[in-house]
């Protein structure tokens, strides 16, 4: 068997500062003994070699606390930016170590990757670049100002030296200034303002380099988190409670005759089953689950009564109300308007729904150290959560991250779901335990993206201009980073996000920046409340919520953008022209003009103007939406066909214009946008978490359907590169938020019917058509 050769990965043997860090370059046959003698020593973040190592052979290794979650950013954009700042080729960076708590310097999570996380490694690269120039100046006897660097060779005064020769055996006299707490959600921040390469001199940023990790994934050479096997490891399954508020009465008896090697572990309300083989663990857990008794609980409104509950029963008064900066006076402008609209918009809970249910391997060792092998987006935050759960210092915990199924924000505060349960079971049996959630566990016991309602009141004046706009958003708390296994086992966790709103004010904050600056009167409010059912659940669980891509903004952009389309129809205006009329920012105007041209938008005032394009029972329509998020401007056009009998919507084409400022890697960005579009179509047409009074009843892909290849529209993408902006906008996958309002706008265009609730399932649309 050959050793897995991965051109750029975290799994190679790594030399750092003379010490050998034993990595994961194990052969296929060694997978069963992946127990590494990893040190619990952490890297010194003030040392440049903790971030960037330049080897004598001119190859370079970089380290970042951010893991890859399918965007490939740390393997593409990070390499491109570091190569640019150092003055080396993209290919010179042959190794990227990411995410592992003991092998990366800065922590933080896989979110805000470009705007807020990337500056760490970029600044370090810039510091190192300057230090190398100083060293070269000294060695070559040439003033620093006369030196230039190309592909890792420093030249000047007729002399030259490579980076590899410069650093060979020498230590850079450089200390990286950092601040912050590595165990926090955001990790460390690199301080200072080293000179950065002018954007006008870029030669690597802007090119479509491939994502190196794709090779190992496609050729079955990647070690995924589910592939980790340790000596003596047991397979575990957790029997989750019957309802989201149930307490354990008694665990079912284990049939030892059938399952001689299995064990049942009970800790408060946590019931686990472990066995040496996975199949025995599965069958034994099913047998035990059938006999396990739980208390009943009915504390949820049920999905049929969800929006009524949010409107009438939920407490929106305790939390402070978030407001955007008010403009004009809506109280006088609204009544003075020629035409007005007052409407409520409703979004259901949706699931992250990773293709693989969460899993983790934990090894609680006799010496008190704990090793966790998982696929978290925030390894350092998970590490502190596990330490908190066991009331031990964080430096006894090591989290190693591996490739895993994308889950789109669910673990950006640390917990992917199964890690804490694996730790609890491993501690109980004194052996490594691999906990694998089932599909049902993952749909019923994971967090989800919050449901939301929004009330809009707007007025259009006699000239067909938006005169007044007011919106109030209502959304339960989000970002529940509690470890669910710790909750069930009665162990310490951080508190649930309360009605005040958690981190980032994500529940009751303003998440969707206003983009129609020509509107004279605007008022926006956001109200928060506790997670539904959580405070009344005897085990404090309820419907736990978490970031899912565009968190909060997805919930706020749908009502706004659909309302703007409705305002255009009230004004008798083309909805895209209407948006242009109310925008003043050149980048908002830019994406709208780009999407108009790329999509072949047909400017018209009413739907009847292009009804001739309709055939038989199908009606066609077009809709548009706009969003500004994290430095990136977006516009989307949806072209749809509606079956007037069944109410079925077919999304025929989605066109997306994206202006992120500097486009770092066009082809990778396009692939990300395509993915976001498909998720957006899926959420718009299909997705809704079904739950009754006791818990989530969606349990598999039949009752939580997502888009298939048959649902995929033609996708056209226009990238607008603006190097003059000088910054990297982000959120390439944020395309998911734009499809909903564009598709609902297209439905209005096609049929004159307004669907203010998602998903747009045939029976809902059919009912609208009959109304």
């Amino acid at each position, binding site marked *: 068997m050959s050793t897995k050769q991965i051109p750029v990965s975290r799994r190679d043997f790594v030399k750092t500062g003379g010490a050998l860090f034993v990595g994961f370059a194990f052969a296929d046959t060694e997978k069963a003994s992946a127990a590494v003698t990893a040190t619990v020593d952490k890297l010194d973040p003030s040392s440049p070699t903790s971030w960037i190592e330049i080897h004598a052979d001119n190859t370079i290794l970089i380290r970042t606390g951010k893991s890859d979650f399918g965007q490939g950013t740390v393997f593409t954009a990070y390499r491109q930016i570091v190569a640019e700042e150092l003055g080396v080729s993209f290919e010179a960076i042959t190794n990227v170590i990411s995410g592992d708590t003991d092998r990366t310097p800065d922590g933080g999570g896989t979110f805000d990757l470009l705007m807020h996380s990337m500056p760490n490694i970029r600044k370090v690269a810039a510091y190192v670049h300057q230090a190398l120039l100083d060293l070269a100046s000294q060695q070559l006897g040439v003033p620093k100002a006369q030196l230039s660097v190309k592909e890792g060779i420093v030249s000047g005064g007729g002399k030259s030296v490579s980076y590899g020769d410069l650093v060979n055996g020498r230590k850079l006299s450089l200390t990286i200034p950092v601040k912050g707490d590595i165990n926090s959600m955001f990790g460390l921040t690199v301080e200072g303002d080293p000179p950065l390469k002018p954007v006008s001199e870029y030669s690597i940023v802007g090119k479509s380099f491939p994502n190196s990790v794709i090779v190992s994934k*496609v050729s079955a050479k990647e070690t995924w988190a589910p592939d980790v*096997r340790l000596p003596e490891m047991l397979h575990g399954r957790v029997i989750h409670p019957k309802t989201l508020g149930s307490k354990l009465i008694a665990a079912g008896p284990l049939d030892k005759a059938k399952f001689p090697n299995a064990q049942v572990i009970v800790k408060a309300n946590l019931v686990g089953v472990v066995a040496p083989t996975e*199949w025995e663990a599965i069958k034994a857990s099913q047998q035990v689950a059938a006999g396990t008794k739980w208390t009943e609980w009915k504390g949820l409104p049920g999905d049929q009564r969800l929006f009524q509950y949010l409107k009438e029963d939920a407490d929106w008064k305790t939390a402070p109300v978030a407001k955007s900066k008010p403009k004009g006076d809506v109280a006088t402008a609204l009544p003075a308007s020629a035409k007005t609209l007052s409407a409520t918009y409703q979004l259901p809970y949706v699931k992250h729904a990773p293709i*693989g249910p969460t899993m983790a391997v934990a090894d609680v060792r006799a010496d008190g150290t704990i090793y966790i092998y998982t696929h978290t987006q925030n390894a350092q935050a998970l590490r502190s959560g596990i330490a908190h759960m066991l009331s031990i210092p964080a430096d006894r915990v090591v989290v190693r991250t591996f490739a895993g199924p994308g889950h789109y924000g669910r673990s950006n505060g640390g917990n992917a779901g199964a890690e804490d349960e694996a730790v609890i079971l491993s501690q109980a049996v004194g052996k490594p335990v691999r906990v694998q959630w089932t599909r049902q566990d993952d749909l019923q016991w994971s967090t989800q993206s919050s449901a939301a309602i929004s009330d809009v009141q707007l007025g259009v004046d006699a000239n067909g201009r938006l005169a007044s706009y007011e919106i109030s958003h209502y959304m339960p708390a989000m970002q529940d980073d509690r470890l669910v296994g710790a909750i069930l086992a009665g162990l310490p966790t951080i508190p649930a996000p309360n009605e005040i709103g958690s981190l980032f004010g994500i529940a009751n904050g303003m998440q969707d920046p206003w983009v129609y600056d020509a509107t004279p009167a605007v008022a926006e409010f956001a109200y928060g409340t506790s997670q539904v059912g959580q405070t009344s659940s005897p085990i404090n669980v309820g419907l736990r919520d978490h970031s899912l891509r565009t968190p909060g903004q997805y919930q706020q952009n749908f009502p706004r953008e659909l309302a703007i389309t409705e305002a255009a129809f009230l004004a008798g205006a083309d909805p895209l022209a209407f948006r242009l009329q109310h925008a003043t920012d050149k980048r908002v105007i830019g994406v709208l003009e780009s999407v108009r041209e790329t999509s072949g938008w047909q400017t018209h005032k009413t739907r009847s103007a292009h009804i001739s394009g309709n055939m038989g029972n199908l009606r066609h329509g077009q809709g548009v939406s706009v969003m500004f998020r994290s430095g990136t401007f977006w516009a989307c056009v949806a072209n749809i066909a509606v079956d007037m009998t069944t109410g079925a919507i077919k999304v025929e084409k989605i066109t997306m214009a994206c202006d992120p400022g500097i486009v770092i890697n066009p082809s990778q960005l396009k692939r990300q946008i395509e993915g976001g579009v498909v998720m957006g179509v899926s959420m718009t047409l299909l997705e809704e978490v079904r739950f009754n009074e006791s818990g989530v009843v969606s349990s598999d892909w039949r009752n939580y359907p997502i888009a298939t290849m*048959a649902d995929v529209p033609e996708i056209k993408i226009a990238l607008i590169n603006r190097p003059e902006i000088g910054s990297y906008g982000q959120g390439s996958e944020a395309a998911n938020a734009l499809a909903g309002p564009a598709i609902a706008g297209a439905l209005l265009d096609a049929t004159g019917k307004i669907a203010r609730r998602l998903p747009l399932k045939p029976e809902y649309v059919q009912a609208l058509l009959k109304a």
Partner: protein
Amino acid sequence: MTEIVVNGVKREVQAPSDTPLLYVLRNDLELTGPQFGCGLAQCGACSVLLNGTEVRSCITPLSAVKGKDVTTLEGLPARWAAQKGLSAADAAKTLHPIQAAWIEEQTPLCGFCQNGMMIKATELLEHTPSPTLTQIKAAFTTSGPSPHLCRCGSYTAIIQAVQRAAHAMKGSQA
């Protein structure tokens, strides 16, 4: 003990005969290309070829595989090499054109589902060398026990990779 043929090699497996093939491949034979996605034959992450037909290894008991030929993602290069009559030396350094196309098109996002996507593409292109777009969509949605699901939304990239692979595979026959 059950004797099965995986990627052209006879393997003896101690696992009980009702064990789903997926766990045998992943845990006993250390072939981790097939992934656990649902255990319900609803997503396709665990797909393998059984005598050339795409099946869901998560619900296929070991007993059903006895004497049959299993190909996993790891075995695609050798499968292609055998079909093309490549030398052992050439076979060792090749990828299946489908894998090569997946890399050239930069198809995977998280990549967790792509095992099943490439297995399904292999089944399709071995039977239908020049599939139409409709045939590609049918292969990935209606031809098996369930549609092949990708949560990251890489379907467009998968279609493009299948088309690229079809072209490459035809080219190699000329």
